[in-house]
């Protein structure tokens, strides 16, 4: 017995086999199958239920366990769906669960919210094939072929009451005998490839679109609420909650309090329509952004296609643009700086040339001259430490021979080139190449000697236990005197003591150092330290020295030093994000809540606002991650070998 009913939406619909009647007044007709939009759906088929919007969240998957229609034609047709959970929906409960396949689903079991929901029949967006691959004896085992061609598989269930993954499947789930849940013994015409399903889903959503954002668009459901009896209202609310729950879970938040949600709904419906639509948009945005890597997002900001919150994407575009400009600007002054530095270096090669001339005269005086040269080169007139003295003497024999070479090369080069910078470069490059060609061994000796170990600096004039406490005070004082230096490009695992040792061994200065702790705003792969010197001259000297020369640490990074700009002390008067309502506006409980701390429940405005903040935080976390990844790669490209390779 078939009845053909033209669905009001214009989509083809036909009832299939009748199953029985029910309901209080026997006015409810149950069915076993129906044809909708060209597809036949039977009981215990798995279907997709999803949003009509083009590319947002993926559809939900459920199994039809009841189909019915009221005698009163104004009450729309309904299906009851037993849900399958995607791993992304129950992510917090998947910890410790082994072996979750990419297309694995979890059948809802147990009792409670989230097990099954009643939906409008028109909410169905297409069929899909869900194969049961449980090794249970009652389950007809599917062939490998079938497993590969199935859209989804499942073998475990998720108890919605206890929120746990259960490996066995009970005898009856949601009142449905388990044999219907397992694979059917007879071969069925299963839905074919996933593309067909997608075409269905897309096709359905397109055809549904002109009729208003249908499938689970919160609007329709809420409007339908007005027409239904109270039970149906509760359950369709449940459906919305299911969707919202999906959203919540995608945003990795617990959603066991959907009941409170429904209370809120019944409270202020009209206002909430807007709020919910917005909020679901926000959530969609959140999930969409979470699924897209940050780089894509930056590029997508120019397209601004599917995103509803367009202003935020344009903001991102702006950020991108401005950042590019800024980096360009920064690189320009950096280049200026470079040329300045190079001009500063010009002095030294010239000096070397001059001295070259004088070297040939008495060999005996080489040692002193060389020492002077090195001392001028480093612009350090202070007394040298013992190791360095030893080292310069070692340096002498190999240097001597190469000196002549350098001079020759230097002269020839200066004739050839015109610009200053090029000569300087030429000087720096040619001699070293010349050296490399002839005197490889000498080279290594030279380089090796320079590797010095950082030794513990003597505790001269400082008692240990005063350091940590008044650091801030001493720093503020030092700031006034201008002796605080910021050292950057350190290895982030160094400690403050090590930094002090480094400064002592390499620069021969006593100091107090403090590593800056890693926080969510610091660059994770570099470390910084604040160093206090005794006087401003020392600080200046150190900075200059580190700027002109390059102190390479065993981590492969040269130190960067500059004067530190420390934020002035004092706390800001208000924290953005904390709303201060006027005293008369708050009730006592709220005031208490503000004064202490609490977890927010998802049944109020506060929760929605908190979600917006979470979105803000998550966005920035992702942005920071992508930026630091890129920075790390850039650094890696320039990595310098600490110990040069022996040829």
């Amino acid at each position, binding site marked *: 017995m078939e009845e053909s009913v033209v669905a009001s939406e214009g989509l083809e619909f036909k009832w299939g086999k009748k199953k029985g009647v029910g309901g209080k007044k026997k006015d409810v007709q149950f069915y076993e199958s129906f044809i909708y939009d060209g597809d036949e759906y039977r009981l215990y088929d798995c279907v997709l239920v999803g949003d009509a919007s083009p590319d947002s969240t993926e559809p939900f998957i459920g199994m039809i366990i009841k189909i019915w229609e009221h005698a009163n034609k104004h009450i729309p047709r309904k299906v009851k769906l037993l849900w399958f959970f995607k791993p992304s929906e129950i992510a917090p409960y998947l910890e410790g669960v082994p072996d979750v396949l990419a297309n694995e689903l979890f059948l809802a079991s147990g009792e409670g919210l989230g097990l099954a929901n009643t939906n409008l029949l028109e909410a169905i967006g297409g069929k899909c094939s869900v194969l049961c691959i449980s090794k249970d004896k009652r389950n007809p085992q599917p062939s490998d072929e079938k497993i590969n061609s199935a859209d989804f598989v499942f073998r475990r269930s998720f108890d919605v009451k206890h929120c746990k993954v259960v490996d066995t499947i009970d005898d009856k789930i949601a009142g449905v005998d388990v044999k219907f849940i397992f694979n059917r013994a007879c071969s069925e015409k299963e839905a074919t490839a996933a593309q067909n399903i997608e075409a269905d889903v897309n096709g359905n959503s397109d055809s549904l679109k002109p009729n208003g954002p249908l499938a689970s668009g919160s609007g329709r459901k809420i409007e339908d609420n007005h027409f239904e009896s109270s039970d149906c209202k509760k359950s369709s609310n449940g459906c919305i909650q299911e969707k919202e729950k999906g959203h919540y879970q995608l945003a990795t938040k617990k959603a066991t309090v959907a009941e409170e949600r429904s209370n809120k709904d019944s409270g202020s419906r009209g206002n909430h329509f807007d709020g919910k639509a917005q909020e679901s948009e926000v959530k969609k945005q959140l999930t969409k952004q979470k699924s897209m890597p940050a780089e894509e997002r930056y590029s997508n900001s120019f397209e601004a296609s599917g995103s509803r919150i367009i202003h935020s994407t344009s903001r991102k575009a702006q950020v991108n643009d401005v950042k590019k400009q800024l980096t360009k600007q920064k690189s320009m002054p950096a280049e200026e700086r470079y040329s300045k530095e190079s001009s500063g270096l010009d002095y030294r090669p010239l000096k070397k040339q001059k001295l070259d001339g004088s070297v040939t005269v008495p060999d005996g005086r080489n040692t002193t001259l060389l020492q002077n040269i090195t001392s001028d080169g480093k612009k350090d007139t202070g007394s040298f430490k013992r190791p360095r003295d030893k080292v310069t003497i070692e340096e002498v024999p190999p240097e001597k021979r190469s000196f002549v070479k350098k001079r020759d090369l230097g002269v020839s080069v200066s004739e050839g080139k015109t610009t200053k910078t090029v000569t300087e470069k030429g000087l720096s490059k040619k001699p070293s190449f010349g050296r490399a060609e002839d005197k490889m061994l000498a080279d290594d000796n030279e380089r090796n000697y320079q590797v010095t170990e950082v030794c513990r600096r003597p505790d001269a004039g400082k008692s240990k236990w005063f350091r940590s406490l008044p650091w801030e005070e001493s720093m503020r004082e030092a700031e006034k005197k201008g002796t605080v230096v910021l050292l950057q490009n350190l290895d982030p695992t160094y*400690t403050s003591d090590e930094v002090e040792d480094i400064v002592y061994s390499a620069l021969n200065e006593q100091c107090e150092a403090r590593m800056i702790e890693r926080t969510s*705003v610091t660059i994770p792969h570099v470390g910084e330290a604040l160093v206090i010197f005794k006087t401003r001259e020392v600080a200046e000297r150190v900075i200059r020295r580190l700027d002109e020369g390059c102190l390479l640490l065993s981590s492969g990074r040269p130190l960067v030093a500059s004067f530190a700009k420390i934020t002035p002390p004092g706390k800001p008067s208000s924290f953005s994000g904390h709303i201060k309502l006027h005293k008369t506006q708050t009730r006592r409980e709220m005031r208490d809540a503000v004064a202490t701390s609490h977890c927010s429940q998802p049944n109020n405005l506060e929760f929605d*606002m908190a979600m917006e903040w979470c979105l803000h935080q998550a966005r920035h976390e992702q942005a920071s991650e992508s930026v630091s990844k890129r920075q790390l790669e850039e650094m890696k490209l320039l990595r310098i070998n600490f110990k040069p390779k022996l040829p």
Partner: protein
Amino acid sequence: MATPEEAAYDKFLERVRRTVYIDELTPLATTPVIESAFNQFGTVKKVSFIPNFLGPKELPMSVLVEMETEDMAQAVISTVSQLPFMVAGMPRPVRASAAEPNMFVDRPKKPGRTIRFRWIEPNDPDFDKARRMKRLARKHTAENSFMLKKQLEEAEKLSKQQSETALTHHKKFEMMDKLLNDGVAQKLADRYSMKCFPYR
């Protein structure tokens, strides 16, 4: 076999595992506030603020909360990750994650590591590379501070928007309350012979 250094470092690592790094906290929060907040999860042994010397002033504060056991720390992290936890103000939630050794300023030295250094001469072929690397380091700092600034601006915008919405909601509810209290709604309902739900 472990040297005293290694033993100290292991103890430190154990302490790290017990500590939670809390972020996005209001700078106005004090130690007792934080203690009472996280005592709901277990016993808080120590609260240490991470000072903000180089960042902008409006940056949210970060705190290291050391709990008694590792499980408590895990509980804090998982709860705060799932539900928005607000401390001393609404509605901006705090963020929690596991602490890392680099977050502790008083950490002991990593045992078995010696740092070496060398000065690179200007005529060394690596000098250029080192130069560029220094420049790159500076560029990265600039990029980061720019990003931070942008973040703060967006946060400011969001909070303004939210406080406006909160205010409007409040006004709306106040108005509704007033109408119902004054009996205006009841009178209107009588006029149109509609049923007015007994609100009080």
